[in-house]
């Protein structure tokens, strides 16, 4: 699931003219956010999340939304805290909103289009 999602997002970024480094950073961060979303579900089988991407004014914004409840870092070993660290390190901005409806992670990064 995640590998396919990364490639879809990667292809979109390539079409946008985003360079290798930015493309890597954005796809990895998106994958971490989606990985969190999968964990929020009760089990791997009923994980539902959506990924939305847009680009405006030189900034790529990826929104990952799921219907599960946010679990804190301790939910599965230390690896999850590292996922958050990766998102913050690779992106310019990370916003997490949570409510009764689920959890939404918005990742933003300024990119230098190569064309």
């Amino acid at each position, binding site marked *: 699931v995640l590998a396919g999602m990364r490639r879809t997002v990667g292809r979109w970024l390539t079409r946008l003219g985003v360079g290798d480094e930015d493309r890597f950073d954005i796809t990895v961060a998106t994958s971490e956010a989606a990985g969190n979303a999968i964990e929020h579900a009760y089990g791997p089988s009923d994980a539902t999340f959506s990924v939305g991407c847009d680009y405006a004014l030189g900034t790529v914004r990826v929104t990952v939304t799921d219907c599960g409840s946010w679990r804190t870092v301790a939910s599965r070993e230390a690896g999850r805290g*590292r996922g958050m660290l*990766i998102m913050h390190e690779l992106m310019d901005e990370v916003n997490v909103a949570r409510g009764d409806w689920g959890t939404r992670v918005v990742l933003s990064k300024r990119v230098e289009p190569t064309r």
Partner: protein
Amino acid sequence: MIGLTVEHHDGVPVGTLPLDVDSANARRLRDELEAAVGNDTFDLVLDLTATQYLDSAGIDMLFRLGQRLSQRRAHLRLVIPPTSQLLRLAEVVGLVPTLPRYDTLAAALADTEPAGEPNGLSASADARSPSAIDERTQRPR
């Protein structure tokens, strides 16, 4: 299909990791890699040259594998070329330099010891290898 191949170079196991190392395969990769390391091996080289994606689950797997090996005084050595996008990520999370990294497989293999020759007996001059002497000086107080 997990995409892992393990070959032995002069007795040293070398694992070539797949395109993606992530939550989908990290657990199985770790199981297979642990199984690939015998009690008489002091090194495990993992080649990530072809790997394009590594996520926190994959990173976690590498940290744990490295810890497990170091408890046995063995080394987990990573091959990540300087041009790889993975290198920046590995540095961000501290995987490098926690684990030794090499530009090429040949460079990693040059740092290993042939299987069956205990560390410290044949190569006690190599400061990077934990030696039998270290073991004696580090006994519990």
